[in-house]
C-alpha cells in the first residue's frame, strides 16, 4: 500500500476530476444549450423563468461554484488520506 501511494492517489484524483467534469458538462452544455428547448417545455419553471433559460443564465453559474467547493473538499480529503497533507 505504501509503495502504491502516488498511483492510488492519482487514479482517485482522476475519478474525482472526471465525475465533476461530467456534472459540469451535463449542466452547462447539455442543460443550458443542447437540450434547453426540451427542458423549457418539459420541466417545471424556476419562479417564472423557463427551466433551460434559468440554467443558462443563473443555474449553471451556481453549479460551477458548487463544483469547485466540492472539488476542494474532496481533494483535500484525498491528500490527507495519502499523507500529502500540507500546512495552510
Amino acid at each position, binding site marked *: 500500500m505504501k509503495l502504491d501511494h*502516488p498511483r492510488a*492517489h*492519482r487514479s482517485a*484524483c482522476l475519478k474525482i*476530476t472526471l465525475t*465533476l*467534469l461530467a456534472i*459540469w458538462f451535463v449542466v*452547462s*452544455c447539455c442543460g*443550458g*444549450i*443542447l437540450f434547453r428547448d426540451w427542458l*423549457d417545455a418539459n420541466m417545471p419553471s*424556476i*419562479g*417564472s*423563468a*423557463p427551466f433551460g*433559460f*434559468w440554467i*443558462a*443564465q*443563473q443555474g*449553471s*453559474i*451556481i453549479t*460551477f*461554484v458548487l*463544483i*469547485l*467547493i466540492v*472539488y*476542494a473538499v474532496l*481533494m*483535500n480529503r484525498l*491528500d490527507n488520506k495519502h499523507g*500529502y*497533507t*500540507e500546512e*495552510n
Partner: protein
Amino acid sequence: MTQGLLNGIFIGLTFAVYIVIAFRSRAGSTKEYYTAGGGVSPLANGMATAADWMSAATFISMAGVVAISGYDASRFLMGWTGGFVLLTVLMVPYLRKFNKATVPDFVGDRYYSRVARGVAVICAIFICMTYIMGQMRGVGVVFSQLFGIGIPAGVLIGATIVFFYAGLGGMKGITYTQVAQYCVMAFAYTIPAIYIAMAMTGNVIPQLGLIGNYTVGSESIPFLEKLNNINTELGFQEYTSGKMSTINMFCITAALMCGTAGLPHVIVRFFTVKNVKSVRKSACWTLGFIAVIYLTAPTIGAFARVNLIEKLHNTSYAEAPDWFKSFENTGQMAWVDKNGDGAIQYFGAGKSDAGTNAVFQGKGPTYPTYDAQENQRIGPQGQRLLANKADTSNPNELYFGNDIMVMANPYMAGLPMWVIALLMAGCIAAALSTAAGLLLVLSTSISHDLMKKIINPNLSDKEEVKYARMASFAALVVAVYFGINPPSAFIAKTVAFAFGLAASSFFPTLLMGIFSKRMNREGGIAGMIGGIVFTSGYIVYFQFLGGTADQYLFGITPEGIGFIGMLINFAVAFAVSSFTPPPPQYVQEMVESIHIPNGAGETK
C-alpha cells in the same frame, strides 16, 4: 452638490486608496515582482483574480449584451465562468506544483524545446496585447466622460496610473490593489441592481426579481413574461429564446470555456499562493467572487431593457428624460425621426421586410462638424442630427450602443447621485485592474521568457526586473497609441483571436503536457502549430479577407472556431507523437511529480 463633483470625490478617494496600497506593498525582488513571493492568502488572491478577470468590457458591456440578445448572451455568462472549472480541476494545481513563474516556462520545459517556448511566448504576448488595447481605450472613454477632457488625455492619465503601480509594484503591488478594486466593483455593480429590483419587482434580491413578478403600477405579471411580451410586440426575438443555432452556440461557449482555461494572465494568478491546497481554495473564492457579478449581469440586462423601452418608446422627444439628451450629446444614443411625428419609436427587425432595425446607414453614428449650419446640426424638436443617411427600410428610430446599458441604468431608474458616482468608480477600477494585471504578464513574458530564457540566459535577477519594467513601459506606450487611435473594428475582431488562440494552442498543449507522459516534443509542437494555423486561418479569412456567412464550416462563426481548432490540436498531437520517440526519462519523471500535490514550495 453636483454629479460631477461627487464623481470626482468618489474616484479621487478610491485612487488614493489604490496608490497607498501599491506603495506599501511594492515589490523588492524578482520573485515578488513576478508572483508576489508565492505568499498571498487564498481569499485575497481570489478577489484579486476576480478583479483581474473582469475587464472594463465585462463590467460595462456584458449586461448590455444580455439586454439586447437575451438568451443568446448566455454563451458569455457560461463560457467565462465555466472555464474556471476546467482551469481549476485540470490546470492550475498541477502547474503550481511544477513551480515556475510563467506559462511559457512550463511549455518550454515540459516539451524540452526552445521552439515550443518561443511559440508559447508569442501567443502569450499576442493575447495580452489584444486585451490591453481595449482596456486602455475603456479607461480613456470613462475619464473623458467624467472630466470632460479629450479621450487622448484620458488614456494618458490612465496609463500613468497603471504604470505607476504595475511597473513599480509588480505582482505584489497589483494583487493587493486589485483586492480593493474588487470591492469597489462589487458594490458598484450590485447596489444599482438592488435598487432597481426593488422598484420593478418588489424584491430586494435582483436574482429573485428576475424570476419573480413585475409589480409596477397595478399590473402584476411574471417579469420574464412581461419582457417577452414587450420584445415580441416590438418585433424582437422573444427574450428567453435565442436565435443562434444550437451548434454555433455550443461551439462558442466551448471555445470561451477552453480559452479561459488557457489564458496565461489568469493562470499565473494562481502561482501567487503558497501551495496546491491554497490553489484549490483560492479558485473557489475566485469563482465565487466572479459569480457575484455574473449572476447580477443578467438581472441588470433584463431590468434595463424593460426600463429603456418603457421610458423611451412612443415618448415624444420634448418629454424624453434628461439622461437621453446627455447620452445623445456624447454620441451613445441617437434618434432619427423617420416618420416626423416628434416621438421616439423603437422597433426590432421583425417589423420590416428588410430584416434589419438599423436606424441609419453606416456602422456608427457620425455628426456634422460644429461649423455646419444650425439646421444641419439641430432638428425641429431640438434633437441632435446625424450626418448618416436614415435607413428608411424599417421603422426603428432609436440607436444606442451596447455599452450604455450599465452606465445608463441608474439614470433610467432615477437612483441617487452617489450610486452613479460609485458606478463610475467601479468602471475605472475594472479597467485599471485588468490593464495592470495584463501589463505585468506581458512584461514578464518579454523579460523572463524572451530575454532570459531565449536570448541571454546569464541575466541577473536585478537586470531581469529592470527589463521587466522597461518592457512594461514599452508595452504601455503601444497600448496608449492604440487606445488613442483605436483600430476599432480591429479590436472587436481580435478578441475572437485571443480566445481562439488560447483555446486552440495553450489549453490542449498544457492539458496533454500535464496528463500524458507519452506526449513528446514533436507531438506538442505539431499540435500547437496545427491548432493555431487552422484557427487563425479561419478567423483571418472571415474577419479580414471578406469570407461570407454561407461559407462557415457547419455554420460556426469565427468566435467559436477555437473549439474545432482545439480538437485538431489534440488529434495532430496524438498522431504525431505515436510515430516519434517518447520524451526523455527526466521529463516523464517530471510529469509524475506534478501529480503529487505536496512540496510545491516557493515559486522559482
